[in-house]
């Protein structure tokens, strides 16, 4: 087939519409990267909103979304798979008789969207019979037509496949030269083309990017039958391909020969270090269980913040809406109302936001039509706020939503999701090297390891990738078989030192799960290296 014929068919394919606005690229891979013209999306969205109102909705919003994902997976010196996937469709949400209704369709035509809107209204009407708590939406002024894009320099989907393959092959071969027996590595890229409109008069066109370079190095000792692994210290991040090419400006030499990466990452360098460190693990001391002072790198503490603070302060969880799946929360409303619930020590200041540059949950506008914000969750150790959507704000007597509404796909209904939840850096100048100097008997921990927390977010256990023994202010060598176990409130009240802003970095995850049916969300957590005193450490060697 000739290219010209294909382009015409392609345009017909998008729901039978002739779409002059698409900027057609010249290669099939670039076709997947194309975006629908904004004026067409607005007219489709208006059709849905009008149909919903005509059918009786007092409020409606519509999301027209295309999700594009690319992954390149390798092991050792071969590529195991390269794949591109797309998902395209529309979700319409309405309020009728104070009750939510939602419907979705992959038929992205005017007729398909209008039908979808009417179905959403019918579902809301049916559900309203069982309604006991009518929806109260916090006010949000319509903001007209706006657009927002993740601040990227190089669109990963414009980078040729062979360049990505070459990078991973270099990562793998260098790791193996450095002693890795096995290595799996991957690059994952996501582009969300999301158009949102609501009956308040907001029309938001957003282009959201995120990426995740990752690997696992394994070193086997055949004489002992033991194997040791080390995962990448990369961070899933809302940056373009420049994340992989700008490490020189973004890295810091850490203690014990480790390299600390901020918003740029040298995958080859990290893989070589990983192979060396996985080898070193074979001769590392097995930890003696007991109480230690922990110095936690952001690559480790990020996940602890996520599980113990991020999830425990989700308002829907606090209220019991997640009781059948992930559970409820110890951070109950009476503790917040008391204004003196000591979540952590005086120096613990935690905030929620959707604004920090390069953070995965940073956006222009949420799936309720609310612009991104920043707010305190824990101030000077006291619980002061939660994370809410428009229909939850009234529960906390808030005048507006914090903008925490998100759906992971066009065919799922949006609900409250965790924003970026971060620990503010210390105000006094302090490096991690200086922090370690003050520790008599401790462990310095980096990287994401095993993680588990109970269904009310009290008891947790975390591992890591790298563990270093600290004796009398000096790192004395590598440790193995380490996991720390604590109680959320005790742990955060044992927080005694936080490094300054120059050490502030982000931890990220692509797949934070919540809800039934399950939805995933990408989220980041910022912090500096932090010290916690007298924490219980287990030896995990069975």
């Amino acid at each position, binding site marked *: 087939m000739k290219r010209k014929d*294909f382009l015409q068919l392609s345009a*017909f394919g998008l729901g039978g519409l002739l779409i002059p606005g698409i900027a057609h690229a010249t290669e099939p891979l670039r076709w997947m990267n194309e975006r629908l013209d904004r004026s067409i999306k607005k007219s489709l969205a208006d059709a849905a909103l009008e149909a919903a109102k005509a059918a009786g909705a007092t409020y409606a919003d519509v999301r027209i979304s295309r999700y594009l994902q690319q992954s390149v997976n390798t092991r050792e010196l071969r*590529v195991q798979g390269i794949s591109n996937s797309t998902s395209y469709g529309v979700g319409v949400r309405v309020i009728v008789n104070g009750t939510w209704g939602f419907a979705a369709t*992959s038929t992205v035509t005017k007729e398909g969207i209008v039908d979808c809107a009417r179905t959403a209204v019918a579902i809301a009407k049916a559900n309203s019979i*069982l309604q006991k708590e009518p929806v109260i939406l916090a006010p949000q002024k319509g903001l007209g037509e706006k657009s927002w894009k993740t601040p990227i320099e190089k669109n990963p989907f414009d980078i040729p496949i*062979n360049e990505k393959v070459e990078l991973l092959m270099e990562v793998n071969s260098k790791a193996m030269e450095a002693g890795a027996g096995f290595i799996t590595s991957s690059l994952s890229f996501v582009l969300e083309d999301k158009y949102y409109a609501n009956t308040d008069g907001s029309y938001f066109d957003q282009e959201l990017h995120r990426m995740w370079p990752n690997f696992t190095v394994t070193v086997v000792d055949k004489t002992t039958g033991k194997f040791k692994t080390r995962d990448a210290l990369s961070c899933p991040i809302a940056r373009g391909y420049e994340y992989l090419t700008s490490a020189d400006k973004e890295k810091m030499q850490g203690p014990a020969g480790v390299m600390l990466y901020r918003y740029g990452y040298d995958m080859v360098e990290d893989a070589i270090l990983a192979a060396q460190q996985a080898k070193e693990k074979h001769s590392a001391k097995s930890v003696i269980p007991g109480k230690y002072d922990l110095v936690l790198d952001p690559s480790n503490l990020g996940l602890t913040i996520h599980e113990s603070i991020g999830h425990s302060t989700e308002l829907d969880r606090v209220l019991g809406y997640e009781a059948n799946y992930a559970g409820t929360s110890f951070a109950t409303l009476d503790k917040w109302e008391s204004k003196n619930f000591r979540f952590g020590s005086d120096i613990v200041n935690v905030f929620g936001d959707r604004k920090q540059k390069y953070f995965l949950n940073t956006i222009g506008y949420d799936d309720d039509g609310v612009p991104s914000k920043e707010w305190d969750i824990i101030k000077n150790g006291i619980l002061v706020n939660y994370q809410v959507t428009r229909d939850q704000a009234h529960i906390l007597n808030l005048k507006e939503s914090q903008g925490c509404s998100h759906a992971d796909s066009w065919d799922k209904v949006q609900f409250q999701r965790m924003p970026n939840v971060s620990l503010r850096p210390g105000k006094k100048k302090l490096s991690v090297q200086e922090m370690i100097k003050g520790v008599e008997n401790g462990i310095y921990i980096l990287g994401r390891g095993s993680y*588990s927390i109970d269904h009310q977010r009290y*008891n947790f256990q975390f591992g890591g990738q790298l563990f270093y023994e600290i004796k009398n202010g000096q790192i004395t060598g590598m440790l193995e078989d380490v996991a720390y176990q604590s109680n959320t409130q005790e742990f955060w009240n044992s927080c005694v030192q936080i490094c300054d802003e120059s050490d502030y970095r982000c931890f990220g995850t692509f797949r934070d799960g919540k809800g039934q049916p399950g939805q995933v969300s990408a989220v980041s957590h910022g912090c500096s290296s932090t010290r916690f005193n007298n924490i219980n450490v287990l030896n*995990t060697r069975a």
Partner: protein
Amino acid sequence: MILTEQQARQLIDKLLSYSKADDIQITITGSRGGNIRYARNTVTTTGQTENLQVSVSSVFGKRTGSASGNETDDASLKRLVEVSEEIARLAPENPEYMPMLGPQQYQPSKTYSDDLAGMNPEMRAKAAFDSISAAVKGKHVSAGYLEDETGFIAIGNSKGLFAYNKSTSGDFTITVRTSDDTGSGYARQSFNSLSGLNAALATEKAIKVAEASRGARELQPGKYTVIMDHIAVADLLPMILSAMDARSADEGRSFFGKRGSGNKIGEKLFDERINIITDPFNSLNPGTPFTREGLPVQKQVWIENGVLKNLSYSRYWAAQKGVEPIPSPSGMIMSGGNKSLEEIIAGTERGILVHHLWYIRAVSAQTLLYTGLTRDGVFYVEDGKIKYPVKNFRFNESPAYMLSNVLELGQTARVGNHILPIMKIANFNFTSISDAI
């Protein structure tokens, strides 16, 4: 969207006709599903969705590329084929590439039931109503979720392979918490036909545990004899399946690897009462009779009288080792005994009864050590009787250890897509107490 076998074949033939590659394989999956979710004794969300996903893998020599999408007009389908071909041309050769399979014979599956395919919003609402009503009657707070799905998978390739399977499945979970927030109970039903759903019965079971679990006392962590009800067994034991890969074992990076080289097939690793198979044709937990490559799936013995009989072999690794490929295990079926939970409790001098586990994560792949927590009702058993509820525990324990330290196996039941017995295990390792209720 559910395509019939004929419709799926036509769509695959159309995609095959677009191909310029040496070989091409198409996978089409479709589903039509519904769900209802409730919490705080009120319905929170309901949904009904349909989707159709087309995945294309194109091959030039040993170069492969894949693309998938949900747009099924001709132009988009052609685009998918072209994208997969472009990726394949750009990809380096994969020395481990295995040629696509030709036509295969598959046994008819037992995965589809007309009655469950006919599930509608009213039936889901009725189930939620029955469950909420039972909780409200007992002055408790319910949160539950019911989902059902009709789905199909069709695979076809340029070598003439064609496979099609239709299925129905459903799952109902219910958590009941006492209104004073001091007790919690949980129940679950997994099914392929409507007869497997009884929301009121499941809710009554959760209520019973929630009421009994109020006022939990603190017991010191340590090693205890543990009686695990079906759900708790299903939460932890199937974790062992992910380690049952021959290549990882042969490469020396798995629990089933042998020091030096090779794997532990043929070794007695577990208690001699342990027998584990998978069987896609078992009517209680039926499975799809082929893999994503189109390889037929048969009944497979994994552990027999405590001896490791098989590990899974990919087609590539099987060719390297000169054995037949064995698909990864799915839908574990473990033999049990005749005793009910009550009878096992009655025969226990001192132990802990556990109903449900939560947030289980691997700690060590070497030893298959996992950590996690108990939830929704833990009880101290003494002299054959439940004495009192106890606070939740964190555990650090290995499913391999569970299979080696069996004291007793009870009656079996289906949970998720597994059929597992009640288990009584010695020296189960609880490492700390959790304040969660």
